[in-house]
């Protein structure tokens, strides 16, 4: 993954995390069509960047929310856990690349 693609992925993770935080506060039963449309847009973006497992987890949440099922809560929790791990992995790769570039530039002691 290029640095630019990683940057875009991290921006998407931050946006999605913020939206999911808001869902936790407002409650899944209070979500409307606009919320679901935004989430569906994020789902598509995740698929396009190759984050298929995350896209599938978000798809499960959308389906459970659409049906008004109680399982939506578990789907939200599972999605958030995966999203956090994805963010950590992206961050790790970004920072490893940054240190490698610093070394290549002779900036390390």
């Amino acid at each position, binding site marked *: 993954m290029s640095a630019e693609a*990683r*940057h875009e992925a*991290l921006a998407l*993770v*931050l946006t999605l*995390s*913020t939206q*999911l*935080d*808001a869902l*936790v*506060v*407002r*409650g*899944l*039963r*209070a979500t409307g069509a606009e919320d679901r449309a935004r989430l569906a847009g994020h789902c598509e973006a995740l698929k396009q960047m190759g984050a298929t497992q995350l896209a599938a987890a978000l798809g499960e949440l959308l389906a459970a929310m659409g049906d008004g099922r*109680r399982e*939506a*809560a*578990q789907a*939200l*929790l599972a999605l*958030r*856990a*995966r999203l*956090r*791990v994805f*963010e*950590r*992995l*992206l*961050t*790790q790769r*970004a*920072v*490893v690349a*940054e*240190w490698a*570039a*610093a*070394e290549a*530039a*002779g*900036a*390390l*002691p």
Partner: protein
Amino acid sequence: MSAEAQRLLEELGQALEALLLAGTTTASSATQRTLTAAFEAASKARFLRLGATLRLVLEELKRFDSAPERFSGARLAFFVDRAWLLAQATRRALAAGDTAALERLNASPTQVRAESLTVATLGVQRRYVPGAFSAFEFRLRLLDAAPLADGRVLDRGTPLVYGMVFPATAGGQLPPEAMLALPQKQGYRPAELLEGKALTITPALLGGSPLRLALLPDSRVTTGVAVTDWRTLAPRDPAHWRARVAAYRPDPLELPIEFADELLLEDWTLLGDFAPSTVPGREAEREAPLAALGCRFTLRIDAEPATLAQRLQAVNGAQALYAAVHLEYGRQVLTPLALLGESPEYPGLDPTKFNRTTLVRALHASVVSQK
């Protein structure tokens, strides 16, 4: 016990799911009662990490009602996630009789006794959440090799962490630093940790990684001579942090700041002014970009004291920066612990606020305002 614990964990999982479905505003009082009961039962059953996490969920819910300006949806969401994951994983470990997994999930590291430790405070971090708590984390260094009860010997220079938390109920209107003037039962005032002198602690408990220091009721802390060789105690090699990052394996239960290290930056430059953080849950803090070691870091500080940002901007690389470092949203985030010249300066603390006179004045003002 096991069947009872299983039932507790199952009910807790259901209560957390009910909270997510209903939302914070309309969470039923029954859900909140279940969470409170689960917190008490988890603490009693020695599920310490789960108990501590539930306490944070309950505090955040309380804040939503009583002090919405201090409420953080990101913080609530994280701790609801963590509580649910801990409850599910603990339930599975109990069912399988997996004691190793239970120990790991409880995150209660074994503590070992040291009869005597001589330390110095290289840095300190203050966290102040108005209406919630004041916390201080002292970054210590061992000045002499120290034998432990399990046969290990810690080398001189070994990093130790000593944390103190003062709930807001005890703080009231007092500035956080005033807490450092309070005499402790071990015969010292925390402010003495900041005088640049050797401190001898007899005895103490150590556990975790990095090693966290815990005092016993019968511990004694005594002040010794001024430390002069601070530079030999500071972390030298950023390669250690770099190697840890390369080997890092993420854990969904982990807060970003729980995977952290320390760096000493001899040459650093602030690349801009401090501005409010855009990271969810961190909006009350301020950040500035910083260049060092060929990398671009984010330097993060509390909004208060205002003198901290001014001091860091004034120094801007003229003194070495000793800082904690962690990873977050593609960045390496630094938290200042000290400016290091011949001796450490702790810029995160206001020295005018941690003397006894300030404490007495603040206590007096607090009593008068309550009348």
